[in-house]
């Protein structure tokens, strides 16, 4: 299915009414949507059209208004101006249930299901078939199995949801969304925690739904995925619509420059890489792990991290890369092997012990293991430093302000308001605050697990540049990312993980490409 250009593509004006791709009428038509928060205009006269049987990408940096637009469409936020038409009828949603009733279903970034319920219960929750007033469990499971089958998902509906991988849970979430016969399916960052195979599986389901005539709104930071799956896209910037484009007619460079509102200079910054001219692997490594392992988590491995060196961990999701990081950071306790720091034996029994050895760890699970949402940006930034000093020695206010101001400026945290609650910041800015928390403790080894996941290109480039800078100034970094390009750009050395084992280690150079790493992962190191 190819889409034909729709009217005034690429212009700054509102959409033209009437026929879109394939001559059909839009199923969702949002016109002049404005949403205001106290002091902030989150959306300013934004238009969005979704046609049946198309995948429409919503593109923009963090804070561009993507989430707000979705929440306006799903009735989570009220709109202050504008009109939403679904199937031609104007709608005034006041609560998420009303949006669902109108045929709009949403799968959010974080899987919003109950892990302790069964798959069938999750899929049918709120829509269970009843008999004599009681839930008919057999029919529930049968219906759920049917929905799973249409997704091409072969799992036991009676199994507990928590037993399945995030990818499967994501597909279950989509099955759940489709139970209500949705005409519109909104996928908010569905792929951020999936590996390549799982993404392919998800996309197969998305294509199937598209061919059945469902309009799909797809939000992702992965530009390649957007090009793979979407037919058209709407680009937002700073709460305003930049334009609407058929995916086939806009190049990646054009797209990125429209998203960030700047041109080639930023794109060149994306090519930031560490200075590989220096070879840090001399003398005693800052950290040396010998036979370090933990049963059921990661097989014993050896790893050296030298001062000023960036060591990349490459591998698929679940390959053990996060587990390695957690052992090095004391987040999990090793039951085998030993760690030496600057040549002296060290026991990393808990995070506190690791921090005392100047090891900082930024977890991949920002929401659960990083953000203290109800505290302010200020309190979050100094939390690590304050914990290091103990509760009795409170950081003097002036020193706090100094530290906070420095990092808010250096990392370009937006909004630059230290008194904002951290949970009100966008994902990318939360990540910057967490980085600030760790940098404020002046670590010698910084372990970053997926620091750029789910954040926009601009923030991503800023964080990559920061890593390169820190290494140049002598900080050791362990860098984990699902994006191999990123690992390649930043690392001096790369350890390859597979099936919870370290299978290979290679020194990075210009000759090493993504293909080499992929081959190592595929072959398990013995080639």
């Amino acid at each position, binding site marked *: 299915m190819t889409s034909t250009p729709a009217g005034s593509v690429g212009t700054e004006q509102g959409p033209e009414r009437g026929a879109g791709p394939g001559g059909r009428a839009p199923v969702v038509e949002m016109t002049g949507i404005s949403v205001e928060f106290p002091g902030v205009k989150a959306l300013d006269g934004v238009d969005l059209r979704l046609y049946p049987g198309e995948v429409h990408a919503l593109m923009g940096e963090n804070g561009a208004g993507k989430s707000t637009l979705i929440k306006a469409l799903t009735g989570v936020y009220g709109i202050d101006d504008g009109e939403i038409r679904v199937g031609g009828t104007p709608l005034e949603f*006041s609560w998420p249930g009303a949006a669902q009733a109108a045929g709009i279903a949403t799968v959010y970034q974080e899987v919003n299901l109950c892990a302790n319920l069964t798959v069938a219960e999750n899929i049918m929750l709120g829509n269970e078939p009843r008999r004599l007033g009681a839930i008919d469990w057999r029919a529930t499971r049968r219906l759920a199995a049917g929905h799973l089958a249409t997704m091409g998902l072969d799992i036991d509906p009676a199994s507990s949801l928590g037993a399945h991988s995030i990818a499967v849970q994501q597909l279950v979430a989509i099955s759940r969304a489709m139970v209500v016969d949705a005409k519109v399916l909104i996928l908010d960052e569905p792929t951020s925690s999936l590996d390549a195979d799982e993404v392919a599986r998800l996309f197969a389901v998305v294509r199937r739904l598209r061919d059945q005539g469902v309009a799909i709104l797809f939000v992702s930071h992965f530009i390649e995925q957007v090009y793979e799956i979407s037919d058209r896209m709407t680009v937002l910037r700073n709460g305003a619509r930049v334009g609407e484009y058929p995916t086939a007619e806009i190049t990646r460079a054009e797209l990125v420059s429209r998203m960030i509102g700047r041109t080639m200079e930023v794109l060149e910054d994306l090519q930031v890489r560490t200075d590989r001219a220096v070879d840090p692997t001399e003398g005693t490594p800052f950290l040396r792990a010998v036979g370090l392992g933990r049963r059921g988590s990661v097989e014993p491995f050896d790893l050296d991290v030298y001062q000023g060196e960036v060591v990349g961990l490459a591998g698929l999701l679940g390959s053990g890369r996060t587990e390695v990081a957690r052992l090095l950071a004391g987040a999990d306790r090793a039951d085998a092997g030993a760690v030496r720091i600057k040549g002296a034996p060290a026991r990393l029994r808990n*995070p506190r012990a690791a921090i005392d050895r100047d090891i900082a760890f930024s977890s991949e699970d920002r929401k659960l293991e990083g953000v*203290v949402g109800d505290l302010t940006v200020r*309190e979050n930034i100094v939390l690590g430093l304050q914990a290091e000093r103990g509760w009795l*020695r409170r950081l003097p206010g002036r020193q706090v302000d100094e530290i906070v101001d420095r990092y808010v400026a250096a990392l370009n945290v937006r909004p630059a308001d230290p008194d904002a609650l951290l949970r009100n910041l966008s994902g990318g800015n939360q990540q910057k605050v967490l980085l600030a928390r760790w940098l404020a403790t002046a670590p010698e080894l910084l372990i970053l697990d997926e620091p750029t996941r789910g954040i926009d290109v601009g923030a991503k480039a800023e964080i990559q540049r920061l890593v390169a800078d820190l290494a140049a100034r002598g900080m050791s970094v362990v860098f984990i990312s699902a994006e191999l390009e990123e690992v390649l750009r930043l690392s001096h050395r790369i350890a390859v993980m597979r099936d919870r084992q370290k299978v290979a280690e290679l020194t990075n150079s210009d000759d090493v490409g993504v293909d080499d790493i992929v081959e190592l992962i595929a072959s398990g190191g013995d080639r």
Partner: protein
Amino acid sequence: MSATAPTPAPAASGRLGAVVRHRLFWPVTALVALLVVNTVSRPSFLSVSVLDGHLYGSPVDILRNCAPLMLVALGMTLVIATRGIDLSVGAVVAIAGAVALSFIATSPDPGSPATVLVAVGLALGLSLVLGVWNGFLVAVVGVQPIIATLILMTAGRGIAMLITQGQITTVTSAPFKTLGAGFWLGLPVATLIAFGVFGLVALLTRRTALGVLVEAVGINPSASRLAGVRARTIVWTVFALSGLFSGLAGLILASNVMAADANNAGLFIELDAILAVVIGGTSLAGGKFSLSGTFVGVLIIATLSLTVVNLGISPLVTPLFKALVVVAVTLVQSPVARRKLAARPRRRTSSGSPSGSSTSKAVA
């Protein structure tokens, strides 16, 4: 009614909105309303007179009667802030009273200050140990707080019974009586102790980093642990403090009646304490806590008890009356209920977030 209890000075009309939005606005309003009801029913309610160099009157009664609850609720606030709950406070109250009075009763010289000091030291020491035990179960063993403290809640009264050997122990000891019934500088000693400890802890949490670390642990325990906060130590500490403060409350209660009643001392005080914490605006989900809120909450509950007497409400319906007031206070504090009651200033601004909190659109 001119010189009434401390109310938040209703500032200039321009700042009225800020006053109304203050987290203490509704609790203080409820307290003032209770005082007004009492004053209307008995105009002399708020009058304080001086007799024998002591202050007398209903306000003084409220301040004195609330002392034990003040101490228990203080510990409870900290425990709740770390996502915990301490159901054993009532049992600890009973044990502390039993230990102190049993020691005094069996000592050769019940009236000597030394005896009383040792008795108080023993009781407080044991209370601290019991708090440490709770903290051990929660922070080290990892038992859910409600279950961990339920153990001592049920076993504690048995322990108290063992100590008093099933009797209601009574003593005559002037120094010990001072604790609950004495006056110093015209004010009840119990009040001075409770308010002193309260002020000290308030100072400790806000002048040091303890408060913010407790909140961090309550909001996100795993993130706090990874940030290097000694979460286990903090949880342990708040449970230990809760035990200690409950013990102190137990001593005041025992001194009030000069008897140790293992079955009834501090009965249901855990519920009153939790209520005071909640009325004060600290969420049972943990995290942000408000000691000043708890302070007002305790005063509300103490005033309520006196109101029942003052209005001549039959003891039969006293629980019902209390329940109604509590429902009213919590309703008026609930953002959902307030939004429903308030006129809608703007189209669809009342659309709630799924979490039901009023903060979904709040950008600080």
